[in-house]
């Protein structure tokens, strides 16, 4: 399953980067969302999948799935939410102030 998942993650990353390279600012925001999904899956997949019981000691199993990537990803999910929220508000405040949604038009002036 790891190899199959790696390919899926590769596709998710490709799409995310493709979106990030868009001109439309909403696509860029959605790109970051998709990128964070890919990232979380990548972290989990790299450490190996389904190596044992869920990391809860109540199960009294011999082996457990690696808990560390899970802890990392849990942190990452929450941070990603914070970043997305910030980005969205940044985008729409910017849109309200300047009425611009095309990154081509959002370039700094030449003399900067």
């Amino acid at each position, binding site marked *: *399953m*790891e*190899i*199959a*998942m*790696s390919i899926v993650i*590769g*596709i*998710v*990353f*490709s*799409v995310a*980067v*493709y979106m990030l*390279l*868009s*001109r*439309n600012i*909403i*696509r860029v925001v*959605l790109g970051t*969302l*998709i990128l964070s999904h890919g990232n*979380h*899956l990548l972290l*989990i*997949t*790299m450490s*190996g*999948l*389904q190596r*044992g019981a869920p*990391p*809860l*000691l109540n199960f009294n199993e011999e082996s457990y*799935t*690696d*808990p*560390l990537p*899970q*802890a990392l990803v849990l*942190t990452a*999910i*929450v941070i990603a*939410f*914070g970043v997305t*929220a*910030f980005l*969205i*508000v940044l*985008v*729409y*405040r910017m849109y309200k*102030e300047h009425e611009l*949604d095309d*990154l*081509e038009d959002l*370039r*700094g002036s030449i003399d*900067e």
Partner: protein
Amino acid sequence: MSALHFATLTPFLLAILIPFLFKYIKRIHTGWFVLFIPLILFIYFLTFIPVTAAGETLMSSMAWVPSLGINFDLYIDGLSLLFALLITGIGTLIILYSVYYLDKRTEKLNNFYVYMLLFMGAMLGVVLSDNLIVLYVFWEMTSISSSLLISYWYYRDKSIYGAQKSMYITVFGGLSMLAGFSLIYIMAGTFSIQGIVANLEPVVNSPLLLPAMILVLLGAFTKSAQFPFHIWLPDAMEAPTPVSAYLHSATMVKAGIYLVARMTPVFGGNAEWFWIVTAAGLTTMIWGAVSAVRQKDLKAILAFSTVSQLGMIMSLLGAGSAAYYFGDGDNALYVTAIIAAVFHLINHATFKGALFMAAGIIDHETGTRDIRNLGGLLTIMPITATLSFIGLASMAGLPPLNGFLSKEMFFNAMTYITEYGIFGIETWTVILPVVAWIASIFTFLYCAIIFFRTFTGKFRPEKLETRHVHEAPIGMLVSPAILILLVVVIGLFPNILAYSLIEPAMRGILPGMIGAGEFFEVDIYHWHGFNIELMMTIGVVLFGSLLYMTMQKWSKLPFYHRENDVFNTVYDTGYEGLIKGSQFLTRIQMTGRLRDYLMYICAFAILLFIYTMLRFDAFVISTENLSGIDPYMWGLMLLLVASVIAVPFINNRITAIIVTGFAGFLVALMFTVFRAPDLALTQLLIETVSVIMLVLAFKHLPKLWKEKTRPMIKAPRLIISIGVGVMVTLGSISAFTLGGQAGYTGISEFFTENAKSLAGGYNIVNVILVDFRGLDTLMEVLVLGLAAIGVVSMIKLRFKGSEDV
């Protein structure tokens, strides 16, 4: 921390008080308070003379970064003591002079004296530290304080230009010096100069010796304004005159001389050292002397003359270093050369300091320094004229002043070189005394120009800026008078310095050349008989006078009118080119498009990835140890791929948001399959909240529209995104496979085993979050809190009206 450390750091500590003194005590000139610092330090350092005169040295250690071998060690021997006395002694006189030179009502005295004290402390640090890194730190501090002082009148363009120039050149030298020091450390294994000198074996036999030598010399040459780095010194004359007299003639520019003297025991045994130092010194000397003649500004003449005199001291140190090459300390040549170097160092500080102060007085009283406008000041400023005359006579090398004595010894050393036929290149060494002699003629010539153009001739008050030209106040004349007094006294009784300062300093430059308890023979006297040196001096006076008499004729030549140094053009062109080049680079690179920047980042990441994978043969794939795929997992993966691929094609905001959210829920489902219940719950809830947030923000968001991009842009965009995807896939597979093969237990094992016993929890993920890695979690919620506050402030705080955002 010893008294010595305290003394070195005193200027820094007391610099803190200066702004307050300036602000609250307006009635008294701030300089009067500052005056005590160098004065007390000077007296303190005087107490060391008996120690060094007895041939002893003093080392005082203080640990700083002991693990890296960097200690704040201070070392006093004859050489460092001589410099410390020059710094504090001349410093006292300069501060006294500055009290009268700078008006307390109009000048920013707080800046001036803070910079001055910074410089003084840094300079003391340079000459006293034994550790190369500490020396380097102080060295750069002198560069910085020097720039600050040059730009003291910062509203003048020329001041800023001069400050920048000196900064660029000396900091460039400083950095290469640091590289040289690092090489020395690689060779010797220590940063302590005395440690290196004590164990020279690994240094001398290392192939790194020559690069280290050249790098260290670059530092010394830039600081001491040696050819072709001398161009910053004339521009540094934009500084107030006390600064020029102190930093740019008496002390800071001698730091390079100090470094060369200090490093002579390390590098002196090499023919390259002899040739580079001597040749650079003599080239500088003649270039400086010839350039000085062309200048029309008093201070510019003095600046080029300083360049020339520094070159002379440098060449003497080079000649003296041959002692190491022959391993012979008794030879008269080396002894004479080093005596002359040390002696002239002292002499130059006395007469040049006095001359700068005299130039400052003339500038202060007449408002101009242009020798074309000056003239006839002899009767108006008799004291200044007398002082200048003695100083100039000493610089020109006229008996019985101290300049004469050192110039004689200089000629002596230079002619000896030819006799000894050093390194078997006799034909070449003949050039050295000839160059020295010609440079001396020009020295005589510009001395004559300064004196006669300023003090004799016709007084033309209409060309001057001030109406009533008169003699300077007594206070301003005290400092140059003391220095000129020294010129005369040293000239008449040179041997008072012989065993108190000069001989101990020589022991510092040539340690190991002489056994313990023995002393170099230092005997300076006026009359050597009718020998070649005397003839050379007489020749200098004759030819110099002749050239001055015929000045009317040759001053029409274009040579005389081309004041600008060739190397200034080189510097300016290079500087402009650098700025233009970087602007050009910035322009082609910084397009202002987010897309371009992301492309650079991704492309570079891909290239780096490819390189690493090929270099370490890191791509590994194995079908072993894989976990099986449940049938529903195929469905999940297909759905995820399909929904994600669909997103870029959707041109409707709400659909795009929902499809993205759908992908997020699929990820949550996958987490359950991966046996991560906490993750699944978190992802599920976050996705819910995110979608709610997106839908709420929906009314504010701009529309999605179909993008029309040219294939020129579309192709690289596709290539880069697919490249990133492939890179991630390959990286993930390799990481997984290698992780399984590595065979060591990760830290996860520790968490699994100890969750119950150490933290009393069954949910390992939660235990990691709140206990084992609690600090990470704390920082994470801090980030979340900051993001929330950022959102709130973006919404609540609005820019009003015309503010540009």
